């Protein structure tokens, strides 16, 4: 499948992307990085890179625009995770950074959020792409750079860990 964008002005395309995908990408980056400022950096960088790569994407890219943007976002988050700053700070504690839960939210949703954030990054990544971004297995494989069968197995393991954490309490099972 080759995605093509109707012949609109590049800045219009960018604006449409930011409007349509900006918030979910921001939230995905936050779950990956557990840091508001870094996530904001990551998602803005994502759109800048996407704009610069627009011509290449329009010519022939095997992704949907959503998958393509997710690939850029995932790689940008990976870049950020390399910084000393990121490595130094104890990200496991950042679960507490999650904005407060609205009062009507059920406790099981709070537990699920904590469990997702407590997952090791390789599982968190596939959970986000599959469940949150609704991206199909084949595209997830391309985004992360692993085989489709590895996507399947990682998702299976991620679900298993989530179930385990929800049964025991996220903090007991996190790594």
């Amino acid at each position: 499948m080759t995605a093509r964008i109707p012949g609109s002005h590049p800045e219009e395309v960018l604006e449409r992307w930011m409007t349509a995908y900006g918030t979910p990408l921001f939230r995905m980056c936050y779950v990956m990085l557990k840091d508001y400022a870094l996530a904001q950096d990551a998602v803005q960088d994502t759109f800048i890179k996407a704009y610069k790569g627009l011509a290449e994407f329009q010519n022939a890219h095997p992704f949907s625009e959503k998958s393509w943007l997710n690939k850029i976002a995932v790689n940008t988050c990976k870049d950020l995770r390399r910084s000393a700053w990121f490595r130094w700070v104890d990200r496991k504690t950042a679960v507490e950074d999650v904005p407060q839960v609205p009062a009507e939210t059920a406790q099981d949703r709070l537990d699920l959020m904590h469990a997702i954030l407590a997952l090791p990054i390789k599982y968190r990544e596939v959970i986000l792409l599959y469940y949150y971004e609704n991206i199909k297995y084949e595209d997830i494989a391309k985004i992360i750079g692993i085989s489709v069968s590895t996507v399947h197995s990682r998702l299976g393991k991620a679900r298993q860990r989530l179930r385990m954490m929800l049964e025991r309490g996220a903090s007991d099972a996190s790594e």
Partner: protein
Amino acid sequence: MRRNDIQHTIDTHLSSIAFTGQNQQAVFAAIKGEKPMKRKMSFALVLALIIALLTGVALAIATWHHHAEEIARMEAEQGYYFEWEADSRVALVRHLVEGGVLPPDERTARLFSGSLSKEEASALATQIMTEWSEIREDAISLMSILEAVWGRYPYDWSDEDLVWYTDTLEKNGEKLTSRFYLPQGGVLSKEQAIGLAMEYVKPLVNYPQAVWDTYTATAIYESQPYAGTDEPYWTVRFHPSPRWTERTYIPSVIIDPRTGGIYSDEVNLTPEDALKDYHETIAFWGSMPIGYARFLPHEERAALLSEELGGYSVPDPTYISEEKATAIADTFFQKERGYTDAQMAKLTGYAFYRAGFGGGRPVWIVKYYDESVRLPDNYMILSVDLYADTGEITSSFPRE
């Protein structure tokens, strides 16, 4: 596990996180080559400046801090704006006006007149807030308001505002991940911390001066209560200028404010350190595990790369050896590409064996790294693929 569960959970918990009009402006500014994070000066900021000029900067800041503390307390007690009753929404707008950051106008006068029903007041307050802060109703929060006034957290905030922020959160019983301080008591100054960090990082990352000249450094004096310490330290970060250019990440440097000691683990990263957490790291890097795997013996490389990338295995002894493959690659770059002995001597070659690649034939992939650049995965300089049975070159990087 259903999709809806996870989507709803994330969207509910992170409802305060939204890609706003300000974020969009920052992106557009970046692609136009402007310095993007400088916000367009809003009427609110103009008003704040006028107040500051008329009544004194200190008084204006104190006034705004007082009202912002009230907003923080409301958020701590009532949750986020989208959950608030009409009276609280009106009170918020009043705090912004009285704090000198939102200019009063006909709409605010109508809002404060008491003539509106709760529904009308709530709707008008939301309209005023979303227009002023340029974000959606469900993303309005103390942080979004403070960013609308001061710019991006933490980079654009003053040291005093950062200290005020964490003090305020703590007063409201919130757990802090960072606490900010003003340097006191004979510790290193901000300028000294930046100087030490640059002196330390420059030779380690090896960037030419022309590249360095595009960077600016910022320093924040902070502690990490959750990491088990309230001892403050300097964190010096390096940003390309303008910030939103295609960036190369220079490691941040953590500095002991009393001794000048450096705690930047990334720039000290040895191969052994890199391997400490390689299972998680390599899995995460996805397309870049080879950079880490080069430090492993063949059996472990194969196991690791097979899981992450597929197709790697231990070398088949009936085909050409690792040494021979590396020698072929050396010759290729020297004879075909003109690399000198001196250039090649600066690089270290690593051979990776991959079965079933290249039309089913096994290949050796020989990659050369500049190990003088002490970052683990990003400095592969040359690469060549060759058939493991014949030694024939199949591809190379960079291409001719």
